[in-house]
């Protein structure tokens, strides 16, 4: 392509061209703070997973750890299928997903308006912030016994646990997102003749929305943590309940398959959120 001098030393005609010749793959992958093609990212992600599976498999078959404690990936995969064929795992998944989304949406619809109010009216912020900070630091598992006393062992107590776990985090995140909207945006709105309500609807919310959606994605992840806590302590259905009851029979492959199911659901939800984010906020891409 270019003269040989570019490769060895001296003054390469084009820096990137010169590097490409020496270590084409590595310099491509390790370009400092650059983006990668989607396909390369996908390949790297799959590769990371494959390494993990291989290491797991090698450890399991080496016999260092007894199979009751560490089954092979393959036996976990078989257990995964058995969960669906031998017991109705699909309906447990539906129940768990339903609980997570119901509680999540319930905290979203309350947290967004309140978070907006907190950041807009200092009085609301001053009123709520100390209380929210107090509740926010209470460990949610510690609240489970109390919530079971209040709401019983039915659905209500599970929803309450999830709501407690996400609402008080989310409201502060929403409030922070709206606070970060540049003052110039708001002042521009004033001098263009917008009312306070119009500034909120036409400027503050669109400006804060990308960060808000990102925070919703992260909070939804926490929801899953609290769900499993709630289902282990007090439930007779759901993924957490299945995992916990199989534990009693030391069905390690099934337990691991249940955990993996949560991981898969999490991964899919997260990717869906990211996809929606890219589509909705395409203007952020440079």
């Amino acid at each position, binding site marked *: 392509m270019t003269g040989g001098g570019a490769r060895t030393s001296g003054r390469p005609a084009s820096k990137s061209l010169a590097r490409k010749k020496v270590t084409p793959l590595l310099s491509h992958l390790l370009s400092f703070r650059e983006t990668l093609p989607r396909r390369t990212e996908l390949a790297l992600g799959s590769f990371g997973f494959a390494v993990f599976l291989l290491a797991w498999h090698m450890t399991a078959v080496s016999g260092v750890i007894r199979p009751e404690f560490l089954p092979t990936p393959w036996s976990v995969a078989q257990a995964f299928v058995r969960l669906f064929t031998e017991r109705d795992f699909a309906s447990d998944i539906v129940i768990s997903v339903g609980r997570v989304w119901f509680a999540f949406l319930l905290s979203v619809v309350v947290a967004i308006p309140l978070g907006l109010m907190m950041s807009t009216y200092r009085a609301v912020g001053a009123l709520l912030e100390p209380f929210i900070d107090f509740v926010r630091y209470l460990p949610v598992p510690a609240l489970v016994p109390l919530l079971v006393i209040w709401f019983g062992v039915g659905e209500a107590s599970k929803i309450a646990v999830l709501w407690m776990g996400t609402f008080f985090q989310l409201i502060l995140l929403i409030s922070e997102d709206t606070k970060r909207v*540049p003052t*110039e945006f708001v*002042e*521009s709105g004033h*001098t*263009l*003749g*917008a009312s306070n309500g119009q500034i909120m609807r036409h400027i503050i919310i669109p400006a804060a929305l990308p960060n808000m959606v990102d925070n919703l994605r992260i909070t939804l992840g926490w929801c899953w943590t609290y769900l499993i806590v709630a289902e282990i302590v007090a439930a007779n259905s759901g993924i957490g309940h299945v995992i916990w009851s199989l534990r009693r029979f030391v069905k390690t492959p099934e337990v691991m398959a249940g955990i993996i199911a949560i991981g898969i659901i999490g991964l899919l939800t997260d990717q869906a959120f990211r996809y929606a984010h890219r589509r909705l906020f395409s203007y*952020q891409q*440079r």
Partner: protein
Amino acid sequence: MSHFLELSDISKTYWSADGKTETKVVLPLSLNIEEGEMVMFLGPSGCGKTTLMRIVGGLETQDAGTIDLHGQRLAGPDRRRGMVFQSYSSFPWLTVRGNIKFGTRYRKDISPAEKEEVTDHYLEMVGLTRYADFYTNRISGGMRQRVAIARTLASNPDVLLMDEPFGALDAQTREHLQFQLMDINRTEKKTTIFVTHDVEEAILLANRIVIFSSRPARIVKEIDVDAILPPEARRSGEADMARFMSLRSEILDIIRAEYAHTLEAV
């Protein structure tokens, strides 16, 4: 006979967070501005000229004094005073065209069809028709400031307030925009207050320059630039260089003297 924009005995004091120390930002100060006039606020940085302009815009409140626009008392921000900020204030979720059209959004004096016309008019005036469908994070800083100027003009304010709008731009872009603003000003005849600390920018654009003291701001001198350097000559770049340079050094001397005061105070 009242003036177009009258500032009467405006004063402003900032208090420290503990409420114990006060800093006078603007001394009681009066200033009249005529319709269509381009007035440059010049002075040492931190002297309170921006604060005064923000008071005119209703974005800050004065402790005492009044502002009247065509004899009407002003309080709080509204569409009669449009503001262009130093930092980029164009909205990233809207295209260039969407941003400029946003300027017409709260106007009730024109129909939706006229809003489209106004948008296209200012899009063309700032030379961004080709970039109409670009989001603003894809265009340069100079273009973003042109979007901000066009958006403010599209809202048809009575007074245009510009807070060092070209301060963050490189020298070439700044000069280009200064001449573009002169062109816009000739056709639009918008009453403008323009805050800057760039003396040459002030001489180039002004009908009148108001020089402020170091904090607290009071008016040290007013210069009728049109009488010294005819606007036409400045626009075409044929201004008398000797006069330009002597005016420049006269202004710089005044500002240097003000800086010296500030240093003594420290």
